[in-house]
């Protein structure tokens, strides 16, 4: 058996009590088998799942996070939290994309309490997908060492309060249909709003975290953060204007304002 070499990912699932948890139960009742990688956390509604939870799981070293809710229109609550789950997950995936983590590491699915077989199918498929991706930070296109990974996830975590605000404000699609949600989050308008509301903040956080390690030249920053020179210039300018960093002319380096 190739079990010795096989990558056995750590996966977290956060699922709603009424549908997906029930589907996972029925999956068990029906004895459908899936790989033993995932650990489930129960919440009452997929709308309770927070960006913070996902980022914490990744910061803790988990390789993927699954979120499961009720099918649209089946939410147990009149608040229809599963729409909020779509929005949160889309924002989360966009954040991951921006910090160089594969967005496939976060996945949202609807599973009803009657869909044991669907739960099993998703678990099997997702486990295989994550196995293929490899450990967090080491997938194609990631290539992050532990320290850099931690810095990036910390930058993302600092974004959480702002993301919450954006999600109740301009990142909330006007029409509550699954189609409208999918369209909105796949569209250009979303990217533009994301940049405006969250993208720059995320970038500045990353600059600050990079400088926490010590003064850096613009070239260092471009290399560490994987940015173009013009991006570095823009974010450094913003950070300086806010008074968060300063330019140490003597050494030709940027440093934290208080440092």
């Amino acid at each position: 058996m190739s079990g010795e070499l096989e990558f056995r990912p750590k996966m977290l699932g956060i699922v709603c009590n009424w549908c997906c948890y029930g589907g996972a139960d029925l999956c068990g009742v029906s004895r459908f088998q899936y790989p033993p990688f995932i650990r489930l956390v129960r919440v009452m509604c997929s709308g309770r799942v927070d960006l913070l939870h996902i980022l914490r799981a990744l910061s803790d070293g988990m390789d993927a996070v699954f979120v499961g809710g009720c099918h649209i229109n089946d939410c147990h609550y009149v608040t229809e939290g599963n729409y909020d789950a779509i929005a949160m997950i889309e924002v989360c995936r966009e954040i991951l994309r921006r910090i160089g983590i594969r967005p496939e590491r976060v996945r949202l699915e609807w599973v009803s309490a009657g869909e044991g077989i669907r739960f099993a199918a998703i678990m099997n498929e997702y486990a295989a997908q994550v196995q293929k991706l490899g450990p967090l930070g080491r997938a194609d296109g990631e290539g992050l060492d532990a320290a850099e990974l931690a810095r990036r996830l910390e930058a993302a975590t600092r974004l959480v309060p702002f993301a919450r605000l954006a999600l109740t404000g301009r990142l909330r699609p006007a029409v509550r249909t699954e189609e409208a949600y999918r369209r909105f989050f796949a569209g250009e308008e979303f990217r533009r709003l994301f940049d405006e509301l969250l993208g720059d903040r995320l970038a500045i956080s990353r600059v600050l975290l990079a400088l926490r390690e010590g003064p850096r030249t613009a070239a260092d920053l471009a290399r560490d953060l994987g940015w173009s020179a013009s991006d570095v210039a823009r974010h450094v300018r913003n950070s300086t204007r806010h008074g968060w960093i300063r330019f140490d002319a003597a050494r030709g380096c940027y440093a934290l304002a208080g440092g």
Partner: protein
Amino acid sequence: MNKAPDADRLGDVMVVGGGISGIQAALDLATAGFKVYLVETSPTIGGKMAQLDKTFPTNDCSMCIESPKFIECDRHPNIEILTYTDVERVEGREGDFRITLLRKPRYVLADRCSGCTTCVSYCPVHVPDPFNQELSRNKAVHIYFAQAVPLVPYIDENCLYLKEGKCRICEAVCQKQAIDFDQTPERVEVRVGAVVLAPGYAPFDPGPRSDYGYGRYPNVVTSLDFERLLCATGPHEGEILRPSDGRHPHRIAWIHCVGSRQVTPGGHGYCSSVCCTYIQKQVILAKDHDGEAECTIFHNDIRSYGKDFERFYQRAEKLPGVRFVRSYVTVGRELPDSRNVTIRYAADDGVREEEFDLVVLGVGLAPPKDAPRLARLFGIELDEHGFCRTDPTNPMRTTRPGVLVSGAFQGPMDIPESVVTASGAGSLCGELLGRRRGWLARERVYPPERDVSAEEPRVGVYVCHCGANIGRVVDVPATVHYTLGLPDVVHAEESLFICSTEAAQKLATSIREKGLNRVVVAACTPRTHEPLFRDTLREAGINQYFFDMANIREHCSWVHSREKEAATRKAQDIIRMSVARARHLEPLQEFRLPVDQRALVVGGGLSGMTAALSIARQGHEVWLVEKEPELGGMARRLHRTLEGLDVQAYLRDVVGRVYAEPRLHVLVGAEILEASGYVGSFTTRVRAAGRVTEIRHGATVIAIGAGEYRPTEYLYGTDERVVTQLELEERLAAGDPRLDGVRSVVMIQCVGCRQEDRNYCARICCSHALKNALALRRRAPAPDVYVLFRDLRSYGFREDFYREAADRHVRFVRWEPDGRPSVEPATEEGRPVLRVTVPDPVLRRRLALDADLLVLSAAVVPAATSQEVSRLFKVATGPDGFFQEAHVKLRPVDFAADGVFLCGTAHYPKHIAEAVSQAYGAAGRAVTLLSQDTVVASGSVCRVEERDCVACGACIRACTYGAIEFHDTPRGRKARVNAVLCKGDGLCNTKCPTGAISLLHYTDEELLSQIDAAAAEPARAT
């Protein structure tokens, strides 16, 4: 069983039969304030449902959903369970029955027995196990099944000592001296005001008949045998092994209608109603167990007439390797070497004989064996089929006042109907005994809650084997050992079945003795068992929210059964997460909300009126709201039922009683403007006759009925010779002259349903067609009547009328969806006719029928207002647009929203008697609420930390319940949660930028601790 015997044994109601129907009746009555004696002849409550593996159409685990009710009964202060007990004599009358019971000796002293089962292991006598349909063996002393209530062994008649006066090994090995061979039958007299008979049914026994080979060929089993084979607690722990050689059967055949729809001697003429769907369930489960299995189902009409049954049928039919064959069959012979069994059936090319490894007989439901005895004892009549004779306008009424009937003793029915009729019988008892409600009832008393706020967490972990369900995969002892190394865990132990009554008692003791303040049970799913363990915590004197369940069965042992080591590690991880969470749990207080003891019934058809009357007769004020100017609903268009009831006379009587009932207020021509509130305290604004009334009520019953589909097919609306069954019924009742010249009538079934856009069976149309066909054939001169059908679904006793229609020469022609009938106007010998052509799959040619009248069996569709009512009262509708009950099986008239109930065709199409049953059921459920002064609301609601609130309003926008509002404080405007309106979804948590609001019991701290624990590399105990 440890309860001290009541000196005078005075009660309100005796429920005879401890199956699911009896259990539900007992629970409803006891909760509504009556003292109940629950009498069961077998050694435990549970009945047939306990023997089933899964329940259709959701495939819920049967025991898992039923067993929490056992414990609820056992713990209810107003229920006294008397198992292994028979009724011996009944005297007295309605309001004052004196019933003598005979308690059979168990030879085991319940109050001494610890349930250790040492006696069982030492008993030398092996006997066929009745619970496992005698497919496995047990001992002469044994516990009926692991979740039995009471969990006390009994010694059966096979005991060597009882038979031959020797052995007594059990007596010698019992350290508790709980064996008592001196026990003798004990007589008990109980006085009650009313009786609910719920003895259930007996599965049809194919043994006495030679034609099925049952009892002769070991590989012919009944469907109930097969349930046990499927079940994890069955003879082979859930492996399907055939009886002759213990091998996995590959080719399995099911035979429908065994003992049902048979007028030959030894059969029953009626349809048993449940077999079609339970067979589909068994096929699905058999395929779950073995994806390669070849399943063949020999069937007659497929009667998928219940809610979601049609989809369930499609699910079974679409599975690979599943073959539905429409044919009568005979069981052939047993092949000498393989012991396979052959089945002969009609195929396209003549009679075919095919070999199967296992044959499952879809046995019907027969009257309970002791039905004649019960009838004699209680002075009630039986019907021609041997079931209880019931009042045609009220299926819970027997021929004797004060003796009610629920469940399958009324006639074949499924679990939800057994539950509905139980609640209905409860409501009728309430009408009868209303004035004594509460006299004998006691409140459940819990010990005072220990204040643990100053204590460090002391976590106890209980790891369940669940028989072999967990223990066979997860190394439970190693897991217990591992658990002891986790932070704050001060105690861990294993248990065979932590959900058994006895284990739950031990758990309570253990919590007290070890001084625990947090409890983790690692077992099955919290969705079914959390309430039970929370209750145990209360009994142990600690806050019930100090509890967490680690699901190591559904989410571990059952889904990783081939990876035992990995499953064990995962179980340990899951427990570690639970322990981490438990350390952060806070004590929460559930709060009591006052109950406004008035009810609102929406919909003034027969269901709504019946429910309203029953609630009002139990002393509650009721508002009955109807949108039409007159009461009566759909019943106003009906004249006779299939069974012959004069619907208009009945309707006049009910309407008369409604207007005569002083506690009942009727608003007709009414429109509901607004509905708000929550369980116990609703407010609904209604406009009627130009006035707006604001109604305050504690419970709501939704009974808005359904509509008739208006066909667009078959020339309906363009040719006046095309009518619906309802229109025909009206013409028949009115003696419409247009019927006089009619020589030939064609009826087409399934118009507008059993198709893609309405994927359900409208249930009533087959019976409706039979009724009208019979009425036409009784006319002189009688027209020819043709019924073009897909599956004739005259379930239950309606089958008698199908036979009568055939006897009266109504012609039945079957068609299939790919060969729908077509209709065109034509002229035949100068007579203008409607020419209906249909491919006849039996005769395999196109059949042309000339009709003077074409009758369409138009589907029943959701009421036009259903979506609006759904929105107003915040209750869900299902995929077909009918209202969705809280649980298909066990909460059939409750909505998931507390305090709102459901009955009649708003739930699904149904016949009058069924709608009336449900109406009483909904009334019964509503009264269990209305008879309380307060209700308990969950403590898991949101809370604002005012210091952190910046009054951004994000939470308020997210909460469409309107549970959060701003209020002014000395430190400015702050959000505040109205806990009564908060439903605990926690959406607001994810919106608050400062983390000021949190959902208690699911706080970020609790969830993050779980996440951290999930990721933590565990320190493994070695």
